[in-house]
């Protein structure tokens, strides 16, 4: 047993932190929230030079050939600066889906472009009146004999407005679920950004009689439920790692502040109430990291990880709310200012919790695995 990062993993993490601190400090979130695109193309290109977009893409498709742990470490570093932008949706969702489900032709065409930073992808699952998971999807895909026709409306499609392809989950043809790649410029597609809590560019997307060429089918028509469940678990875990970074940074900043802020002639960190807040954060942050790393390691090893992922998502979600709320409490009124960066962490922590299943959803899934009934 060795719970430490290897030398190479340590290097990935520290170089990612360094790069992001310089290129994408947390203040960028403030600049980007009013930017229609919501990210800097320049930084995106630099990430591609470092090979980030291709981190999990096999070398034969011009990727880095890394495993899930490598991606995990980059996501953790991104969490530390609350990095928004198309990395998550392109790499942790889009590339992952194509690697798993793509035909040889699709992989050859798309994966090298993703590695180069030339493609932006998004995944469209959620719909109004739907909850977490895959039940209740009403967007339909019908087969006309020639091509396929997509109709429906999606919510929370991150970066749909700048995507080259939206990977859209739909019901049909017939019984099961399918995934198709939709070019958002096709006739009948409309995307508009939503005003959301953590300033990501979440969009609503509507599809009205959108014709989809057969070449854009991902995986097997009508047989994608199991695969999608796997992808959503994977995405939930990726969110855990992002969350770990978010709360690590909020925690560190709070301890620093507790040491430097003086009231009553002494550092507020000398008050036991504040010390106990900080100590509680240690348990939350370390617990979140260990349980997320464990699940990431299992995924990287190709071991079953569903229950570990659900436990990780439930714990990190709860921990993240506690840690970021305590960070605000320790900082006092200054943290209630927009000018002060801490609220980006508080927002991001909550947004990560609601993505791909919240605490309650994953506790239920964990309970399901306990064999209670």
């Amino acid at each position, binding site marked *: 047993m060795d719970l430490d990062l290897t030398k190479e993993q340590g290097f990935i993490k520290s170089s990612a932190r360094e790069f992001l601190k310089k290129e994408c400090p947390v203040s960028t979130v403030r600049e980007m929230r009013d930017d229609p695109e919501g990210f800097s193309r320049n930084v995106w290109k630099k990430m591609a030079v470092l090979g980030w977009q291709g981190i999990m893409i096999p070398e034969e498709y011009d990727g880095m050939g890394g495993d899930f742990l490598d991606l995990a470490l980059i996501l953790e570093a991104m969490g530390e600066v609350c990095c928004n932008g198309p990395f998550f949706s392109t790499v942790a969702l889009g590339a992952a889906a194509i690697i798993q489900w793509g035909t040889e032709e699709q992989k050859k065409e798309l994966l090298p472009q993703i590695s180069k930073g030339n493609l932006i992808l998004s995944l469209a699952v*959620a719909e*109004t009146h739907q*909850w*977490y998971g895959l*039940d*209740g999807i009403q967007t339909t895909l019908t087969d006309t004999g020639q091509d396929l026709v997509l109709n429906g409306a999606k*919510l*929370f499609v991150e970066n749909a407005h700048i995507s080259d392809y939206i990977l859209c989950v739909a019901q049909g043809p017939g019984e099961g679920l399918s995934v198709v790649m939709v070019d958002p410029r096709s006739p009948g597609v409309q995307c508009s950004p*939503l*005003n*959301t*809590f*953590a300033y990501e560019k*979440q969009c*609503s997307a509507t599809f009205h009689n959108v014709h989809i060429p057969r070449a854009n089918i991902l995986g097997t028509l009508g047989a994608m439920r199991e695969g999608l469940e796997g992808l959503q678990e994977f995405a939930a875990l990726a969110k855990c790692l992002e969350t770990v970074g978010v709360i690590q940074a909020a925690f560190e900043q709070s301890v620093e502040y507790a040491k430097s802020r*003086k*009231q*009553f*002639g002494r550092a507020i960190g000398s*008050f036991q*109430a*504040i010390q106990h807040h900080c100590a509680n954060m240690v348990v939350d942050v370390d617990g979140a990291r260990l349980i997320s790393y464990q699940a990431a390691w299992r995924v990287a090893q190709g071991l079953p990880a569903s229950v570990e992922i659900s436990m990780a998502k439930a714990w990190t979600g709860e921990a993240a*709310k506690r840690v970021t*709320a305590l960070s*605000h*409490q320790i900082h*006092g*009124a200054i*943290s*209630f*200012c*927009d*000018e002060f960066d801490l*609220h980006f962490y*508080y927002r991001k922590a*909550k*947004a990560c919790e*609601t993505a791909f299943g*919240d*605490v*309650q959803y994953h506790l239920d899934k964990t309970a399901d695995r306990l064999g209670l009934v």
Partner: protein
Amino acid sequence: MEFQFTEKELAFRAELEEFIKSALPPDWQERARSWPGGYGAMEYDSEQDRKDAESFKQKMVDEGWFTVSWPKEYGGRGLSNMEQAIYFERTSYYRAPSLNIATAIMGPTILQIGTEENKEDWVPGIAKGEIEMWLGYSEPDAGSDLASIRTTAVREGDEYVLNGQKIWSSLAHASNYGWVIARTDPDGHRHRSVSIIVVDNNTPGVAIRPLINIIGVHSFNEVFFDNVRVPARNLIGQENMGFYYLMTALDFERLIVNIGAFKHGLEMLCGYVKRTERGGKPLGADPHVRRKLAEIAARVEIAYLFYWRTATLLDQGKIPSVESSALKLVTTELSRMLANASMEILGPYSMLMDPAQGAPMNGMAPRGYLDCISATIGAGTSEIQRNIIATRGLGLPSK
């Protein structure tokens, strides 16, 4: 023991309720967006909201509700503290734009400890709603440790000259006078060297810089004093007695916890649950949701009881200090709990901020989830309230 209102209290409550209902625009509940316990979302959304709030206030002045809690000789009704508590409860339940700290805090404080001159200068204007004040207590280095304020006021002839800085000054930009504590004796004892001085915002040398809070609302400010010359008659009471007056002012603040807003918030959330189905079943049948709402309902009940207890103690002539700290603690922690539960119940839809884009409950949940941060910080943090309960209340040693 009597866990119900007296006939007189009931009659007062009914009269008040009738006034509020008739004076508020019928769709006010869909527009008011303040969060129970929060200090940051006090702004209304549109110009129309602001106008309606003003007109409600004017009706209060016209019909004598504005100063209803004041002694009879100053135009009030000389209410009991219980009636006062009922007043705050009903107005906050209906989220009426009625809370004006000058009538609730400064007016009564001046009436109690002010000089005759103070009363002449300030009381009539406050009563008519023409004078509105902001609280100038906190400074960058004096938050929880209020006694360490550095703003100075030096007497020069019949003026004080103020220098220094205040911060977190809520609504300083929307009121016309500051109720400022400043050090008037640089060598004196921590608690016997500060004074309360009223400063006209328009005096040369006063600079108000807006601070935008995390909800995106301009609710508070930094205020700078650069050789600000204030008439000496703006000193409230006696020089160097400011800290004691502050305690008096605090007594008047004790019932201002927006208690009714918590019940309203719970009802709003229950209403959403009632109207909503999830996975083909009523949301109200979900055991997790039921448990959350039931826990909050019990918490709201506890908060109300702490509230009525504080009012009872005041009517008995006792000064509730531990009890009001417990009230502040329990309500503001409830503010957070209610926000958490709202977000959890809305799930993914809690991320939507804009009602026009489908945000449930008028977008209140995410705003509340932000505003509740201020609840446990503003007006004395939760840690400070716990310290007060432990040391002053239980006699635990502080070292």
